[in-house]
Structure formats: C-alpha cells, structure tokens
C-alpha cells in the first residue's frame, strides 16, 4: 500500500483508564438494570410461547370435558399421595417390620398383577363380540376399542378369537395380519371377543358414543354386541418378562 500523508498524531491518551464519573456510573447502573429486565422478559416470553397450549382452538364442550378429566386425575393423585404417605408411616425396619413389609409387598404385587396381567382377574364389566361380515376388521379398530375401554376405566382386558386369547397389558400391540389381527405376536381371527373389567355402564357408553368404536365397526360392515355383566372373569395370563433396558431409577 502506498504511504499516504503522515498520520496525524493522536491526542495524548489519558494516563491509565479514567474512573467513570458519578453520573456515568449511575447511567451504567440504569443500563444494566434495564437490560437485565429485558433479558428476563425475553426468557419468560420464549418459555411461555413454547408451553402455550393449543387449547384456545378447542370448543367449549371439549374444554369442559378436559376439565372433568383433569379433576379425575387430580382426585387420583390426591388419593395416591395419601396412600403413599400412609404406607411410608407404616414401613419400619426390624423382624416384625420385615414380615409386615413382605406381606404388603406381596399384596401390592398381586394387585399390580391384575393390571399387568400376571394373575387372573374378576369383577364387573363388559363382553364385546365383534363379528365380521365379509370385510376384515383392521387392527386400528381393535386398538381404538382398547384405548376407549382404557379411557373409560377398564382395569383388565382380554381379547379372544379363533387362535386363542391374549391378555392386554401396557405394551400390547395390534397389527394387521393374515385374515386376522396379530395381538402381541399371536394371530387371532374373528369373531373377536373382548372382555373388560370395570364399571360396566361406563365402558359400554364409551364404546357407543357417536363416531366411536361401534360406529367404526359398523362402517366396516361388522357387528358389535356389547353385553354388560355383573361378573366376568379373565383367566388368560401374560407372563412377566422383566424389562431388559428400562431400569427402575431410585
């Protein structure tokens, strides 16, 4: 680069950094405070936008229903917390404590077993018979029925058909198969017989809602017969397979 005119000597630098005057320090404090507020406001707004629910688009009836469900959930949690607090008070160490703890653990295991499918279960409920006429029912429909039953409070569900019966657990899956439905690896063919234990009236109502399972089944030219019983027994079991990858965390 060609040299230009000699650089103008810079103004003499003040010796060392000057201390900010009182006014400058106050302004600096104000600036700091305001920018901190700004950062805080940005963070809060971003957080609130991310977590904003899609609820404003829901209809009023839907919102009321969501509120009902939330109340039910709240009740459930409240009861669970009370139970847990009671249990915590009862568990003590020592020989007598160990015995009592063992009994309580076994009772809890059996209770869970009803839900998990490791023990036979009995109680009031419904028996649903799905009879195909020509067109095959899809796995989606049966999955929908199971979800609807769960939502209505079914505690134990069993699905049977030609080919056997399967106890429905948490990880039960439904896939379309050869002229039938594969449930947890077992091929079942129609007519299907679903037994569910719970409040019979609620279960039956949940399936019969407009646009619900009964509708879908009938659209597939099949029939759905729902029978409320005061006592049903589910005896198919689901062997307990300890989880290999999901480790309980303490």
């Amino acid at each position, binding site marked *: 680069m060609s040299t230009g005119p000699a650089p103008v000597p810079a103004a003499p630098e003040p010796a060392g950094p000057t201390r900010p005057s009182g006014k400058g320090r106050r302004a600096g404090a104000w600036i700091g405070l305001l920018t901190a507020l700004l950062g805080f406001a940005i963070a809060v707004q971003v957080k609130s936008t991310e977590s904003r629910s899609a609820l404003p688009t829901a209809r009023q009836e839907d919102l009321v229903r969501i509120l009902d469900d939330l109340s039910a959930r709240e009740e459930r949690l409240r009861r669970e917390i009370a139970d847990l607090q009671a249990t915590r008070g009862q568990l003590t160490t020592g020989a007598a404590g160990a015995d009592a703890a063992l009994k309580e653990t076994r009772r809890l295991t059996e209770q869970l077993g009803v839900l998990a499918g490791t023990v036979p279960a009995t109680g009031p409920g419904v028996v649903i018979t799905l009879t195909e006429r020509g067109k095959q029912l899809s796995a989606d429909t049966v999955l929908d029925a199971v979800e609807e039953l769960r939502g209505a409070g079914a*505690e134990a569900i069993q699905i049977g058909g030609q080919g056997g019966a399967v106890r429905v657990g948490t990880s039960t899956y439904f896939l379309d198969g050869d002229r039938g439905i594969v449930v947890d690896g077992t091929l079942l063919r129609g007519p299907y017989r679903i037994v569910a234990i719970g409040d019979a009236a609620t279960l039956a109502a949940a399936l019969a809602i407009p646009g619900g399972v*009964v509708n879908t089944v009938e659209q597939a030219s099949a029939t759905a017969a729902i029978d409320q019983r005061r006592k049903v027994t589910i005896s198919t079991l689901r062997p307990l*397979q300890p989880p290999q990858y999901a480790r309980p965390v303490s």
Partner: protein
Amino acid sequence: MTAPGRAPWPGARMLDDLLTNHLDPGYAAAARRRGQEGPPPPVRRVALRLAEVLAAATIGVVLAVAYGQAVARAPEAARTRAALVAEVDSRSARTDAMQRQAEALRQEVARDRGAALGDTVTGKAASTELLDLQALTGLARVEGPGVVVQVADGPAPTDPVTGDTTGEADLARVQDRDLQDIVNSLWASGAEAVSINGQRLAVTSAIRSAGGAVLVDFRPVSSPYTIEAIGHPDLLPSRFGTSSAARRFRGYVQQYGMTFSAQRAGSIVLPAAPAPDEGYARPAPSGGSSTATPRPAVPSPPGGGR
C-alpha cells in the same frame, strides 16, 4: 443517505422520508403561508375552528367505538372460553405439581420398603418382582436407552385475505389416532416404556382427543409431541423406522406439512404414571378357567341405532 456522486435510488428518498419526516408537510407549508399572507379572515377562522372541533370529536368517537367493539362487546362465549382455558391451564399445573410430589413419595416408599424387607432372599425377590411389575405397568420411574420420536402439527391452511384459518385445519393436526399409531408401533418394535410429552403410558392410560388437544392419561398435551421410548438401543429405532406408523407419518409430512423425526437416544428417563384407582378388578381365585357366566349376547339393533 446516498453516496456522493451516485444517482439516488428511487426508493431511497421514500424510505428517508418515512423514517425522518413524520409530520405532515402541510403544517410547515401552512405556517409559511401564514408568515407571508398573515392570519386568515375571522369568518374563515371560525369555520376552520369548527371543522377542527368536529374532526377532533369524530376522532374521539372513532376511538371509543373501536374500544367498544373490541373489548366491551367481545362475545360472552369467547370470554367464558378464555376463562375455561385459564382454568384448564391452572389445573394442569396443579396436577403436575401433585405428580411431582407423588413421585418423590414413591421414591421414598420404595427405599423404605427395600430397607424394611431386609437382606433375606425372599425379601429381595419380592422387592425385585414388585419393581419389575411396576416398571412394566408404567408405575415406576425408569431409565434406559431408546428412541425419541417428535411429531408436530402441520401449518393450518389460512385464508390469504383475512389471515383466518379455514375449516380444514383438522387434517394437518396430529390426532389421538396418530399418536396411538406411533405408540402401537413402538410397542411392536420392542419398547418397554413409553411416554408422550412427559406423561408416562401406564396400563390404564388412554390417548384420546378433545377438540384440538390430545389427552394422555387425562392430561391435555399439545403439539409438538415428544414420544420417548426405552428399549434396545439399536433394534428399537431401526424397527420403528420401518414400521407402518413411521411410513404413514412420512406420508403425512409430504401431504400436510406435519413434522416427524425419530432419533436414538443414549439415556432416557421416564417418570412414573399416577397410580390407577383401586377399582373393580380383583384377583380371581386361581384354578378358575371359566370365562364369563353364559347369557345370550344381545346383538346391536340394525341400522346402528343408539
């Protein structure tokens, strides 16, 4: 400002004006004219004053009417709905707090129980059996490798003039069937524990829709949805990637603009679900293989009557 010696870009002058001259140039021109010609004759002045008063009053009316329109006259339904939404949000927050409290209590009880059972073989076996059952039914906090699936609603089609959403927004929205589909495929691919947006799926958890929101185990969750599953670190993601749900969703991505992604994760922690109520089911006495007491089933009336 234009660089010296360059022809000004036509828009530059307009932008300059927009950003610096905010006052109507009429005022300056009028002031200049007044300076040159003097004040206008009294009659004219009174007329102008009148016009000014009228204009100011009109502005006031316009502002008040707009306020009335926007705020005071907002339809009752919208305001009730806003109250309902607020109620749902606050109650969700409350149940979440209770959920955390229950979680802490569960950990404590599990520890106390482990301590109380002691070191005996039977005690340890009983404890392990219970923990395994809890993990499988979704009632224990678990950790492990697996896959994280994320789906989100597509953009709702909007009317270009008004910006409102048209009625077909439902198609682009992820519904309960879609989530059920994904979860079903995850179980089929070997998942051992699954959660949606932090809500663990227990044996009694249901995925249902209510309006635009999806309810998982009675708690509303909304887009974007994060579905986490614990299972074999390699087989689970690969089997899920080729499952029917994954294929279907890739189609939705093309058609409706939904988003879908599935990634393996080294460590996922899933909370426990709230315990279900002790309800109607009781353990049956073992040895009973009979099914439901026989009674003729009543077929549903033809025509789908309800």
